[in-house]
């Protein structure tokens, strides 16, 4: 069990709504080693954020985790009581949220918000905590931390607020950080600063990181491994570089192709994935991607493909994977 820091097995989270049950996360498996950076990518409604929240047990009614196991350092988090989870959240596993404008308390100074984390999870004295807060703010690159410690969130720009959020997440040196679209609300130049900062700090503190994002370019920049989600399921997983260079699942391939390129020749039209994401209330019978897939056959419309090993370290849930060496492309 100690082989992995985190081992997620068949995680299922559903929302029971008036219109029916939505399987937002439908049997997700993945693992994470110490110090590893894993990207979870997908489009809106893919289930990537709900996966992140489920790991921490942050699912409110009408949602509930309906099955699976989440082993963190060998213990199943889903079996823990709320009281036990509170001691794990922030201390062992912390979270960075998407919107730095709303994830800080507007009525508390940033100093006291970081202090809350330290007071809750450490035995440091008040003076030691103050020093630690100053160190953390320096670490995340906030100029003149001694002057800024008593400032309120509205006195900071978006990028600076996200730095404060990162300082809070790192305050007690957690083993795992879950970052849900941490740079989506930021400008490109600030995004680059924050990504660099996160990469350096994760490296320095030796934490593992799960980066949840819709942006494949950010994933390729930062992560070691990536899992692609579509309609609540992981459809492809593998080492980032490999997966981006040679995607096996037609959805991953379509996503990658539809991003306009920054260099090389321009095509007059962008390759596009036809149709749109199906409603989670009304998923197709077979593979969820089949109605939009150019490689789909009769079988794809009937059966749900399981994740299977396609090449060393590379898994995909597809009957007709792309980019396979021996099978060739003439598989239509």
């Amino acid at each position, binding site marked *: 069990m100690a082989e992995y820091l985190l081992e997620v097995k068949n995680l299922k989270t559903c929302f029971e709504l008036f219109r029916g049950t939505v399987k937002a996360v439908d049997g997700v498996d993945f693992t994470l080693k110490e110090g590893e950076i894993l990207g979870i990518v997908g489009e809106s409604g893919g289930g990537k954020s709900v996966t992140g929240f489920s790991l921490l047990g942050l699912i409110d009614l009408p949602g509930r985790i309906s099955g699976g196991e989440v082993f963190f350092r060998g213990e199943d988090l889903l079996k823990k009581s709320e009281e036990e989870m509170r001691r794990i959240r922030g201390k062992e596993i912390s979270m960075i949220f998407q919107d730095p404008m709303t994830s800080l308390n507007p009525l508390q100074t940033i100093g006291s918000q970081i202090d809350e984390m330290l007071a809750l999870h450490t035995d440091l004295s008040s003076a030691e905590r103050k020093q630690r807060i100053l160190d953390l703010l320096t670490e995340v690159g906030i100029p003149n931390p001694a002057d800024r410690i008593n400032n309120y969130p509205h006195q900071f720009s978006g990028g600076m607020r996200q730095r404060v959020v990162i300082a809070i997440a790192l305050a007690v040196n957690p083993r795992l950080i879950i970052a849900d679209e941490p740079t989506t609300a930021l400008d490109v130049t600030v995004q680059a600063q924050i990504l660099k900062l996160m990469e350096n700090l994760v490296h320095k503190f030796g934490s593992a990181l799960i980066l949840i994002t819709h942006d494949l370019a950010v994933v*390729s920049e930062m992560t070691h491994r990536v899992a692609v989600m579509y309609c609540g399921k992981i459809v492809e997983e593998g080492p980032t570089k490999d997966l981006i260079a040679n995607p096996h699942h037609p959805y991953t391939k379509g996503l990658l192709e539809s991003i306009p390129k920054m260099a090389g020749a321009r095509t007059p039209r962008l390759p596009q994935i036809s149709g749109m994401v199906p409603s989670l209330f009304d998923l197709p019978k077979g593979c969820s991607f089949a109605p939009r897939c150019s490689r789909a056959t009769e079988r794809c419309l009937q059966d749900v493909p399981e994740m299977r090993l396609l090449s060393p370290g590379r898994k995909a849930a597809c009957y007709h994977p792309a980019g396979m060496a021996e099978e060739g492309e003439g598989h239509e």
Partner: protein
Amino acid sequence: MNNTGKMHDPKNILEVSDLVQTFTQPYGILDRLTGRPKKTVHAVNGVSFSVRRGEVFSLVGESGCGKSTTARTIVRLLEPKSGTLLFDGQDITKFTPAEMMPVRKKMQMIFQDPYASLNPRQRIREIVMEPMLFHREAADREEAHVKMLRLLDIVGFRPEQADRYPHQFSGGQRQRIGIARALATNPTFLAADEPVSALDVSIQAQVLNLMMDLRDEFNLSYLFIAHDLSVVRHVTERLGIMYLGFIVEQGERDRIFEKPLHPYTQALLAVAPTLDRKIAAVPLSGDVPSPIHLPVGCPFASRCPQKMSICETNRPKLRILDGRAVACHLY
């Protein structure tokens, strides 16, 4: 590029010169009593460019750089503080609302947020028919109905979908409805303010392809506002890069993307995440200065890695260099 002012070039659908836009913060009685100075946000500070017929011209920059304000001022949703706007050879800068009416038919706008820009209480057919009837593009409701169905067909909807409400559609579909509405008055010029930034990648490609198809079909010209450089590179012929309300570099796409000259353009291109390379460049430090107190010198000086002493005191002007215009003391 910045000497358009006097002579109108018939190749251009739109000529903007020295456009200035400011906003003054509300100044209440308490402010007057305490003698607090009036705060003015200098959103657009003398922007000049032109859009040729049938071309896509993009304004690129980060939030707060004045790109959206520029677009809104051009379509006269905001009154320009100074400068001139020539649309199709006509000086529309001082046009009254009545005089603007026939012009508005020809210049339409596509908005960023497809959730906020459609009336939730109107059916799709009403949303698309309303501008036609208002601008007398259709003689009666029958004719408008036929035209509406044709437009919906062009942007990819079936006739029976016309009776639905906006909430029954996804973000990408709503953006296509917004495009159909913009086309309803038969415009020649569309200002698209971040039309795809709220959309998922696979849907973004669909909407971009549609916009480019429509350009060919209806002979449209676009002013395209965006922050995503890869999207801009895909759609545009020429572009201007904005920072703090100034255009710092402007010219043809390939020139700028292959050899950016302004340090800000260089930084933007260097840090834009891409699939095929790792960011090697050290990202810019710091934040954009406040548009309330504009720097005396170069707007970019506070973050520029190649700053010289002159940059603090003299504001560089756009100069033609290597086939584009650039405002920087380095050259």
